[in-house]
């Protein structure tokens, strides 16, 4: 092996060994509960002060890109579900949209299918944000919101299980259509859930959002300035928490989103500086409310002009052979954690892509951690890690 390829590794080893004599090297993870999965953070600490954070990822690497190179587009959809396993619908939606555009069939998708896709994606987004909020509470010592969030998320899981047959990894959105139409009575049950859930959000806000202890732990902690966020490629609630109104559902206007009314919440620095942990948390809380609005609008249309008919077949537009023209295509959409992108290289001859790259939002969001966690207290580091809301399945793919 050429010596210069080993250079960075040698430098790193030297840094750790010299830090071990002068400061203290502390390993947080991979089994630490507040790292939300198998993330290992190597901290160089001076007493309680974190001088440097070195994240080590890859413990959950499952070779998504390698698998995608040997499977057809349709077969890869279950693998996308396993990237961000808390919001599987959003992943397969992005992947499927990219393939459909390459095939040139994205305009033929029936309206009812598009609305069902948005409906399940927004339900899944609420589920993902509920986990983010609940586990964030438990990270900094509030146990009750965790139980409340999981109780409410269970209703979403139950509904999506009813529609697709599985609780977390759905394989529901297919290229050209859906696995099945919604089961009879889904819309009514979903509406019941929305009516049940709205007051629960008020309760949750009273318990956690306005809680003075919670505010003291999160306000003015882990401030992420907007220019740093953009330069590090942060997206989603991370970027919006820093005050930029940037939501790909609005910017790219894909699927049924241009026909829906919703606002894009941003961090305003109500409790401290703009872009602190509380702002990021609050953006997620506000997004749940916007998702509920979108779900209600979807349900209105699905129960009125796009009503279920006996001869409606969600698989009618499924292509016999998924062979896109030879081209490269990068598709991006707003996943639950931020900009989720897939880059395809199709050779125009086979159903198997020559290269697929997944641009995971959590990957870029996590890469900003060493920058904003420099010089904070160890306890604050927990608050910052929780506020980033990453899923290791997506970071490592």
């Amino acid at each position, binding site marked *: 092996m050429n010596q210069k390829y080993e250079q*960075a590794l040698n430098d790193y080893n030297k840094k750790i060994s010299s830090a071990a004599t002068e400061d203290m090297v502390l390993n947080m993870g991979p089994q630490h509960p507040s790292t939300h999965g198998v993330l290992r953070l190597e901290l160089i600490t001076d007493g309680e002060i974190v001088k440097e954070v070195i994240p080590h990822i890859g413990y959950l690497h499952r070779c998504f890109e390698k698998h995608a190179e040997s499977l057809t587009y349709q077969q890869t959809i279950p693998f996308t579900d396993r990237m961000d396993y808390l919001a599987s619908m959003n992943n397969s939606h992005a992947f499927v949209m990219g393939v459909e555009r390459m095939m040139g069939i994205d305009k033929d998708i029936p309206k009812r299918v598009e609305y069902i896709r948005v409906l399940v994606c927004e339900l899944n987004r609420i589920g993902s944000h509920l986990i983010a909020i609940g586990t964030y509470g438990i990270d900094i010592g509030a146990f009750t919101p965790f139980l409340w969030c999981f109780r409410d998320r269970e209703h979403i899981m139950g509904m999506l299980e009813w529609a697709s047959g599985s609780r977390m990894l759905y394989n529901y959105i297919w290229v050209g259509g859906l696995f099945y139409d919604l089961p009879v009575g889904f819309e009514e049950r979903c509406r019941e859930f929305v009516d049940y859930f709205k007051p629960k959000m008020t309760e949750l806000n009273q318990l956690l959002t306005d809680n003075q202890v919670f505010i003291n732990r999160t306000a003015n902690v882990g401030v992420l300035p907007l220019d740093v966020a953009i330069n590090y490629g942060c997206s989603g609630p991370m970027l919006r928490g820093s005050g930029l109104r940037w939501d790909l559902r609005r910017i790219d206007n894909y699927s049924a989103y241009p026909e829906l009314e919703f606002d894009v919440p941003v961090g305003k620095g109500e409790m401290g500086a703009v872009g602190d942990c509380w702002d990021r948390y609050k953006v997620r809380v506000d997004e749940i409310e916007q998702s509920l609005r979108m779900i209600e609008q979807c349900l209105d249309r699905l129960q009125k002009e796009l009503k279920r008919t006996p001869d409606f077949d969600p698989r009618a537009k499924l292509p016999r052979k998924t062979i896109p023209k030879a081209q490269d295509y*990068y598709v991006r959409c707003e996943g639950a954690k931020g900009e989720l992108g897939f880059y395809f290289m199709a050779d125009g001859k086979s159903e198997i892509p020559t*290269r697929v790259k997944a641009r995971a939002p959590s990957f870029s969001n996590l890469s900003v951690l060493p920058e904003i966690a420099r010089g904070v207290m160890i306890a604050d580091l927990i608050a910052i890690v929780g506020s980033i809301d990453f899923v290791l399945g997506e970071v490592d793919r």
Partner: protein
Amino acid sequence: MSFDEITQLLTDKFGADTIAGTETGGLQPALLIHPDHITTVCLELRNNPNTYFDFLSSLTGVDYGTEANRFGVVYHLASIPYQTQLTLKISKENNRDLNELPAFPSITSVYRSADWHEREAYDLTGIFFEGHPDLRRILLPDDWEGFPLRKDYKTAEFYKGIKID
């Protein structure tokens, strides 16, 4: 700015040999850049008030196959103020010798998000980035042999003496 205007802007600024060509066949046109100029081109595209590509969406290392023996990097830039996207590509030939990895300039000085993406490209496709501050493997263990996303990669039979089934 449209794709043609950006091409024109770069040609005027850096001369014709900066741009090796364009790909306009698919849905998204791509600019082929000469590898040595990628950092200055990115810096110009980011700082020029008419383009302002301030967001690096994605960076992909690509192996173009065992016949072509080409390696490349694809950059997807996005401009937040103008809401536009742009694809840049660089590539060069390489004989797959593991002591002479294909080397491209790093753009971490322009976009910090390229840091981890370049580490990933190095880790999986074996592309070396000159001037990267910390080019270690990121997803695989430090002692992994070979680069899995290369088209000639053979699955290892043993890892540290343990048989892989």
